[in-house]
């Protein structure tokens, strides 16, 4: 099977990159046209990605690696290349599809923003970087794109930079992910150091860590794996670096859907899957991944239960679901991780876009001020409901299949991890039920006028919702316990999917229980809402305040660093600036002296000449004696 389309896979990121260049160069003069250019570019990327994927669907498609030598220094050979495998093809389709839908949606959502072309240029740059990250054939290129998506995330979170919260959130996101990026960078440097031939491409990594394991000692491998995982933790918002992701919701909602739900935050999972050979060679690191993932899943779910901001609930849900993916990777099942990433991208993007539609209509993000919107916004309500069911893991929606795959993998690895996963699934269903019923069911609360004016969003916004809703329903069927098609496609048939009755029953039971309880509390009112909060006020308060993680970091790192900064600044003020001032003042004093000498009076000049002559004579005469 020839690889016709794969050879030109670099075209996929090239389209949005070109759109970015055009939008940046022509800037404001384009305004609305610029948005269309970006959308058309993302459509082109999507179409091409689908063609690549279709090509790869044929049996036994060869992996294609292309590129050029980027840097030659002695024995070191760095290439800038791209690699097309089934995994990257899958990611290409997911990223370009979500990017296309978000572009379309933004045409409506950002219609009235005066910096719309800037917005679309950022989105285009992000799409290009994300696709480059996916296509990269070595860690160097991946790291470059990794940083680029980080920058785009920063720019887009802070897009409404006149809001101080947005500025703070952008800074926070950048700094917190930077901690993870540093880990990744160190990991890359270590690999560069230890790898035979300084190779950094994934093929060589596979050879060294999979085929000929033992070249690099286990301790170094574990260290490298943990550092790579640190990068993934930063990017994917895993505990303890999850703090930036909820704050990132200050950005425009389409951005939350694209970057902070579907694509960029999944890059961490993708990275771990891509370098899975390293993790497989270091069991300790793999266990760490599983434990951190499981903990994040349940930890973020409890916080999500107590939040009141619609986007923040979804953000914590994202953190929780990313924890699921990490759990799956840690349990050794890259397939189920990618499967969950795949389905999650659709239903979480759907939920965010639906939330954006709601915010667009009522101009508030507080779910306590919503309610009863289901009758006014039918399409949004239906699609949001489908997304919520998919996220909760109700069969036959896509989330059920992927979550089931994750839980099955966890059960194989460790019963405790499985138990945590089931509890997290229950919590997920509960907070999704709370969110859905508070927003769409019941009677309107809050500002009555705003509710009366609330109406369905325009077609350009609802169309992506419908597409995503359809995908959220059917995407799960690519991998069911009965036919492990995705797994065999991704891994070349090595992994046989096996059904686990316990996992299915437990996850469905937990989800249904969560939904039922949510319905009882928030819709029917059978259980009083403050039943828990009145009994355990501290516990609820703890979850509301996000376990005081932000405050802890503030006290632990921010304050101490600020103190260090102040000390350094004082040192700078007193010592460094003092030296500078001393130099300046002495020059000034010399200048003043000279000014006094240059008083225009001939006598002063004469005196100076006399003194100089005397000194000269003394100096010349003095030389004779020395």
């Amino acid at each position, binding site marked *: 099977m020839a690889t016709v389309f794969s050879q030109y896979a670099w075209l996929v990121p090239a389209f949005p990159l070109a759109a970015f260049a055009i939008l940046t160069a022509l800037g404001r003069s384009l305004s609305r046209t610029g948005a269309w250019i970006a959308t058309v570019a993302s459509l082109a990327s999507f179409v091409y990605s689908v063609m690549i994927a279709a090509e790869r669907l044929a049996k036994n498609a060869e992996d294609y690696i292309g590129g050029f030598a980027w840097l030659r220094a002695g024995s070191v050979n760095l290439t800038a290349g791209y690699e097309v495998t089934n995994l990257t093809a899958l990611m290409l389709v997911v990223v370009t599809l979500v990017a296309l839908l978000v572009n379309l949606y933004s045409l409506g959502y950002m219609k009235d923003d005066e910096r719309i072309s800037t917005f679309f240029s950022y989105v285009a740059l992000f799409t290009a970087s994300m696709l480059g990250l996916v296509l990269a054939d070595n860690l160097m290129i991946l790291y470059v794109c990794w940083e680029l998506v980080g920058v785009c995330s920063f720019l887009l979170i802070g897009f409404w930079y006149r809001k101080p919260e947005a500025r703070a959130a952008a800074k926070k996101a950048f700094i917190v992910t930077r901690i993870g990026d540093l880990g990744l960078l160190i990991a890359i440097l270590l690999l560069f150091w230890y790898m035979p031939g300084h190779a950094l491409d994934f093929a060589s990594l596979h050879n060294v860590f999979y085929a000929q394991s033992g070249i690099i000692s286990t301790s170094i491998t574990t260290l490298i794996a943990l550092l790579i995982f640190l990068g993934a933790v930063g990017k994917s918002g895993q505990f303890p670096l999850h703090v930036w992701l909820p704050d990132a919701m200050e950005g425009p909602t389409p951005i939350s859907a694209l970057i902070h739900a579907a694509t960029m935050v999944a890059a961490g999972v993708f990275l771990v899957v891509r370098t899975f050979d390293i993790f497989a060679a270091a069991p300790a690191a793999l266990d760490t991944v599983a434990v951190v993932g499981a903990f994040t899943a349940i930890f973020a779910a409890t916080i999500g239960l107590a939040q009141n901001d619609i986007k923040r609930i979804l953000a914590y849900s994202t953190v929780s679901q990313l924890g699921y993916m990490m759990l799956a990777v840690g349990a050794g099942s890259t397939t189920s991780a990618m499967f969950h990433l795949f389905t999650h991208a659709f239903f979480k993007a759907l939920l965010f876009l639906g939330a954006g539609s709601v915010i667009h209509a009522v101009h508030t993000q507080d779910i306590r001020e919503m309610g009863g919107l289901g009758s006014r916004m039918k399409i949004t309500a239906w699609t949001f409901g489908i997304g919520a069911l998919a996220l909760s893991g109700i069969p036959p929606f896509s989330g059920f299949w992927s979550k089931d795959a994750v839980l099955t993998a966890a059960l194989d690895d460790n019963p405790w991890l499985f138990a945590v996963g089931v509890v997290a699934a229950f919590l997920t269903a509960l907070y999704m039920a709370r969110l859905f019923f508070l927003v769409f069911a019941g009677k309107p609360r809050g500002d009555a006028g705003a509710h009366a004016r609330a109406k369905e969003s325009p077609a350009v916004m609802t169309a992506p919702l419908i597409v995503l809703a359809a995908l959220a329903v059917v995407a799960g069927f690519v991998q069911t316990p009965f036919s492990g098609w995705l797994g065999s496609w991704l891994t070349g048939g090595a992994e046989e999917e096996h059904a686990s009755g316990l996992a299915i029953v437990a996850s469905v039971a937990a989800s249904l229980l969560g939904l039922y309880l949510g319905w009882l509390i928030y819709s029917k009112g059978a259980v009083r809402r403050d039943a828990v909060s009145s009994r355990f006020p501290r516990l609820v308060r703890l979850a509301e305040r996000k376990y005081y993680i932000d405050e802890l970091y503030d006290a632990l790192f921010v304050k101490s660093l600020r103190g260090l900064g102040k000390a350094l600044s004082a040192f700078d003020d007193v010592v460094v600036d003092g030296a500078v001032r001393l130099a300046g003042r002495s020059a000034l004093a010399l200048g003043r002296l000279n000014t006094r000498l240059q008083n225009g009076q001939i006598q002063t000049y004469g*005196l100076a000449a006399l003194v100089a002559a005397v000194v000269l004579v003394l100096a010349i005469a003095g030389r004779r004696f020395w």
Partner: protein
Amino acid sequence: MNFNIDFTGEFFAFFLLAVCAIVGAVLAINFEKVVHTTLSLAFTFVSLAGLYVLLEAEFVAFVQVLLYVGAVTILMIFGIMMTKHQGEGKEPGRPLLEALAAIGCLCLFGILFYAIRSAGFPAPAADLPEDNTLSIGKLLYSAYAIPFELVSVLLTVAFIGAVALAKREEEDS
């Protein structure tokens, strides 16, 4: 250092005239009124003329009296008369400038004195011609004819220049 001084008549005359010259100069610096300074300096010039006579330069001594004591001093007195000199010596002193100038001058004198004392001049080989004025006249019109003429031109230029300077300002005002 060896001050091998012969207490001859010439030495006494020199000593007397030297004291007169120095006293005149010091007084000139110390007087507060300009006229006094001028007169005191005239006294110094006369003493110097006496020293020239002592040095067997009668013609130069004569010219000294004529030119300095006569012309220059009178010129200065005219200058004094044409400008106002009220409030003399009432301005605040300039201690730094004065101190530095004094130190500089003393250092210079020290250097010169040291140089003079350590030079060790040999005794003169011959005497000067007897008829001083005649010899100078002959020299001026033979060996130094061109410089002599140039100096006369210079004097004329200075004369015209001085007149022009003073006159033009008068017209402006």
